[in-house]
């Protein structure tokens, strides 16, 4: 039976889609058959980040409405054999997502896949609700600033009260915290919340801390999941995150400010 993992946050622009793309790619690279679904109907982005924008013929809504089969709509990733993408529709709106429709698609996917990663839209409206409703586990993405953390808290509340597991009285959705755009120097300077501050508010285990980096923007622009930018700290951080998700013990990296030497302090540089 496939495990359904939602990547959610409440707030927009914190890195849900970037995390979904890298997380799904990471699982696939570890040999798990993975599908990543874009729930942001009307504002689709996942296909851009995954670099398969021009290969989208049929989308998630077409499958729900019966205009296309899953087989037709699933897009195979160009780099990784185990990874498939189900794009969102750009022309419909979120009302196209019905509970029965989404459930049917997830049930069908569950037969073939090990992991189903649901990339949630921002907000707490229907799209976000549908993305988290069926989840077994959740990656809650947050930036080190107060409003993002507050919105994540709200999403955690919805996960624990309105998800299917909560409604059915089953074991609760397993929650993981993913902190993105973390900059240890700015934390030290007091401009950003520290990991400790965030955990103090949210009280859920941290699965990964992704450093703030120019590489993420470059990855988006070139349609490559950040985890595939070999040698960058973002790629390493996402690889660690996936390993921890799969139960491995990896120490956190890129979370402490670099001690700058005299030369570096004199001549700057990053």
């Amino acid at each position, binding site marked *: 039976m496939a495990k359904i993992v939602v990547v959610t946050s409440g707030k927009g622009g914190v890195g849900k889609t970037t995390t979904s793309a890298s997380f799904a790619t990471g699982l696939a690279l570890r040999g798990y058959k993975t599908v990543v679904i874009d729930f942001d109907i009307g504002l689709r982005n996942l296909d851009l980040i995954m670099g398969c924008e021009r290969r989208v013929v049929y989308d998630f809504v077409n499958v729900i409405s019966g205009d296309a089969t899953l087989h037709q709509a699933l897009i195979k990733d160009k780099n990784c054999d185990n990874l498939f993408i189900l794009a969102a529709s750009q022309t419909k709106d979120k009302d196209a997502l019905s509970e029965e429709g989404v459930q049917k698609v997830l049930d069908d996917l569950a037969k073939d896949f090990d992991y189903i990663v649901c990339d949630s839209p921002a907000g707490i409206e229907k799209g976000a609700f549908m993305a988290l409703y069926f989840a077994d586990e959740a990656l809650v993405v947050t930036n080190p600033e107060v409003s993002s953390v507050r919105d994540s*808290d709200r999403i955690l*509340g919805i996960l624990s*009260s309105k998800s299917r597991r909560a409604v059915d009285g089953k074991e609760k959705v397993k929650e993981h915290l993913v902190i993105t755009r973390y900059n240890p120097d700015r934390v030290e300077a007091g401009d950003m919340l520290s990991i400790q501050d965030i955990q103090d508010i949210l009280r859920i285990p941290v699965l990964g801390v992704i450093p703030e980096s120019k590489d993420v923007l470059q990855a988006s622009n070139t349609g490559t999941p950040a985890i595939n930018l070999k040698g960058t700290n973002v790629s390493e951080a996402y690889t660690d995150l996936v390993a921890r998700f799969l139960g491995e013990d990896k120490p956190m990296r890129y979370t402490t400010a670099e001690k700058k030497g005299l030369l570096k302090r004199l001549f700057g540089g990053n």
Partner: protein
Amino acid sequence: MPMTPPVKINLASFDYYILKLSPDATAEQIYDKLVHLRKLDAFGRYLVIEFDGKTNPEKQTEIIKLIKVNAEKLMFELKFILANEFALMKNIADIPVVELSLNLKSTPVSSPALRIEEPIRSGIKIENDGDIVILNLVSHNAEIISGGNIHVYGDARGRLVAGRYGDKSARIFVQKFNPELISIAGIYKALDEKLPEHLLNKPAQVFLDDKDRLNVVAL
């Protein structure tokens, strides 16, 4: 306006709910009280009506008829009416009147306390007519509303409302005090300024003093 909490008495093998009424109770107030009673105990079927103060017979009859209609809708059985020594009738609207001096032992309905072990997240509202005990954090913008006391054994950062039905003896006990709002029996205070060092995130209790002022005291 806060309602007085319903009262439960134990007679023989049945629990009776006493509905305390002021002589000028309106139809809505009566209905609200009945609905509230129904929420407290989905199986309680017996109802006793008690009049506070003097009521003239016509007014009594009118009110009782009103209750009868509503009680049937909500599946309550009206057993008898408790009246004070000025009660003039042997029965009202076919329901027997019993003198209040019968000295029935009555206790306020003790709704069971609600214990919660999960964190209370932003946007979540927890309500209970009895005490509420929370063994975890209460996030910003979460609401805890209790008919009795509130105990929070984690960080309390949300809104804490105790004694919602007007119980002025209700208190709030907190392990790490930093709530946005505190209220007891409808008297509230928004804590928008930084708390003094001896209270901030420290164990504290909140209670009403004899002049109905909210007091926050370190524990």
